[in-house]
């Protein structure tokens, strides 16, 4: 198993290299540059700025410099936020996005999973329909609708939650964003869980367990759930990578200083180094969570072995 993990991590290196290289050249194909803005700059001043950031070097040299810095853990300065390095921006924002994402994911797995099981056990009965209806609504209402509604209802009407801001991570400030992030995930997880649970409940070993007179709880939680959870794990891996790296919509609407907005802002601002930083972070999270999914498979399903 350890050897397998090690091998997977090794193969991640060339993957990352390809991603970094592609991203480096692709963002530069986009027209305009980091220093184009409403107030135009004279060529001399723009030249000064480009010299300061090494953007006047030939592109291959910039690429070599970037790779070299990256290998030393240096993501470079942000062009549009020169008071901070890209590393500092992530050190500030990533823990915030991870906190919100992790809480949302946990909530989604617990609530969505439970709802899915309830639906599966009451297949084609009222409980099932209720869950499915809620799940469908949850996954179709976009977060840019949910978020302002939460702000209006809980913030302005009932005065229970702050409208926005991080407030040094106060509990109340996290509730709105976590709810918004988790609602669509709850819906998806519930639907997945319902489907796989129904299938799992039909399996031979479940019939055997029932025939042996095991309690309903034991049958469902100990035996059926183990098989039913596999699709959830496959889904949760990439979902976790996406959730933990932040959401631009949720972070913008709730004024949360996470990294989600950098993904879009950096590209629009042609903040090349910040774009590269976000690409590396997303790539690492995606690779890592896919690996975790594969490991969890082996843990949950005794038929899966990586030796």
């Amino acid at each position, binding site marked *: 198993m350890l050897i397998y993990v090690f091998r997977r991590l090794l193969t991640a290196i060339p993957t990352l290299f390809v991603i970094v290289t592609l991203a480096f050249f692709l963002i530069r194909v*986009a*027209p*305009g540059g*980091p*220093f*184009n*803005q*409403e*107030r*135009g*700059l004279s*060529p*001399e*001043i723009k030249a*000064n*700025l480009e*010299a*300061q950031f090494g953007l006047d070097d030939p592109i291959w040299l910039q690429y070599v410099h970037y790779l070299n810095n990256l290998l030393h853990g240096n993501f470079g300065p942000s062009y549009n*936020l*020169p*008071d901070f390095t890209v590393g500092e*921006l992530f050190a*500030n*924002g990533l823990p915030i996005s991870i*906190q919100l994402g*992790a*809480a949302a994911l*946990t*909530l989604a*797995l*617990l609530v969505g999973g439970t709802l899915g099981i309830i639906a599966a056990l009451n297949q084609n009965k009222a409980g099932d329909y209720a869950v499915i209806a809620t799940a469908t609504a949850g996954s179709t209402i976009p977060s840019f609708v949910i978020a*302002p509604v939460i*702000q*209006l209802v809980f*913030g*302005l009407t009932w*005065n229970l939650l*702050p*409208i*926005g*801001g*991080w*407030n*040094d*991570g*106060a*509990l109340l*400030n*996290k509730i709105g964003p976590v709810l918004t992030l988790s609602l669509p995930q709850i819906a998806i997880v519930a639907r997945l869980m319902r489907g796989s649970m129904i299938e799992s409940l039909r399996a031979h070993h479940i019939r055997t367990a029932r025939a042996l007179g095991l309690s309903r709880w034991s049958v469902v939680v100990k035996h059926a*759930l183990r098989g039913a959870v596999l699709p959830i794990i496959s889904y949760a891996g990439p979902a976790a990578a996406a959730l933990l790296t932040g959401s631009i919509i949720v972070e*913008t*609407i*709730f*004024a949360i*200083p*996470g990294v989600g*907005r950098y993904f879009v802002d950096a590209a*629009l601002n*042609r903040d090349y180094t910040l774009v590269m930083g976000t690409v590396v972070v997303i790539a690492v999270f995606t690779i890592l969570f896919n690996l975790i999914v594969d490991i969890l498979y082996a843990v*949950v399903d005794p038929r899966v072995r990586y030796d």
Partner: protein
Amino acid sequence: MLNRLLRATVFASSLLLAGGAFITPALSETVYNRGNSADPESLDPHKTSTVYEAHILRDLFLGLVTEDQNAETIPGAAESWTVSDDGTVYTFKLREGAVWSDGSPVTADDFVYSFQRLQDPATAAEYASMLYVIKNGEEVNTGKMKPEELAVKAVDANTFEVTLKSPTPYFIEMLTHQAAYPVNRKAIESMGADWIKAGNLVSNGAYTLAEFVPNDHIKLVKNPKFYDADNVKIDVVNYFPTEDRSTAVKRFEAGELDSNDDIPTEQLADLQAKFGDQLRIGPYLGTYYYAVKTTKAPWDNVELRNAISMAIDRDFIAEKVWQNSMLPGYSMVPPGITGYESAVASYADMSQIDREDKAKEILEKLGYTPENPLKMEIRYNTSENHKNTAVAIQEQLKPLGVEVTLLNTDTKTHYGFLEQKGDFDVARAGWIADYKDPETFLGISVAASGNNYSDFNNPKFEELMKQAAAAGGKPEERMKLLAEAERVLVDELGNIPLLYYSYKNLVSDKIHGFDENVMDRHPTRFISKD
């Protein structure tokens, strides 16, 4: 195994959620929570360019001169100044006993260092060009001379002298801009790039930097060493970047923000009904215009450009697209500059119907009819209102035989294209005053300007601008010459002025001293809160 996993995740998530603590400010402190449309790019005054940065830097630093709550120029770090008879040598007497936040005195050397740093190519200051009016400024900035050769000197510790290239009557106004703020040499030289971080930053203004969490907040605390600290009433000002305007309005309503510097314009009518006097809208020195490629057929025809300008119903755009958060504009220099009378387009007084008839006449004469339409492409940068403005113009021009197509690109692409002198018909642009002088609006149409997207090159305009510069010592004559220059610019239509900007502030009843002015500048040192 699964149970353990579940338990672990529940535990972890409850820890995560409970991770933060509440912060409650001390009771005696007056805290002003101020919404600011965007985070600053930098807090280094020499590396900034936007008004969002200016709001914060105005609290942190004190230039030679500064502004009061009405945006009138008042003495700052300099107590007084004299100008030589020929209008080129400015001698500033610095405030006795003024100190930096670290306690060291603010001296003439600090200003020499700061002015040299602004022009040093290694600083790569965006606004260096504004102070090219200082002798050798441009030469230093373009690497032809050394920073030490800039014509600034410390006569003694308290006397700072600047020599200008030629008389520049708006020089004092310019010094209110953040590019002219002093920075602390010792801090920069000892800490390098880190001098700007909270805890390191040494400033000489009414406030010092306590915290800067990007995308979250900037906390400034009152500087007890500031010379006028006794009259500073706000103890802590928190700047919150409010990129989402709708959220900002809700945060204001919930009392999380005491003011915000923008609103979602599409909700203007509702907001007016809801907030009454707390919503403050008024003229702001900024012009929203369309640049026309004047060097390319058929747009090199002045008559054609005028016809297009006439046919645009600005009242409709201001009212329907911008909900009256912008005003119809007929000149490049918006009204509001004392001593200056803007040169408005000749058809400003005509009714829209008459204008359209006249435009139709011209277009027909030039052979453009609905059957043989003139093709015109409008380029604009991504924004709902820019799009709606362009769509409205498209509809307005259609019956006159102008077939308008729209091209939307993101902001960087848009301005990158204009800067590269790309091939276009008509392109959206805007200009906000850097200082209160018509020159800031007219200078962008001088042939050599990097902002002259229209490639406007009119000998008479150039000549009048030169004459106005030469008339530096005589303000009245200069203003007249500038107005004549604007007359040429408007008649020859280098740009199509469309709208004048308005400021749109939400200000709580609890806030006092947030006085309305055309520059929309509101230093926190003059503000108080109940």
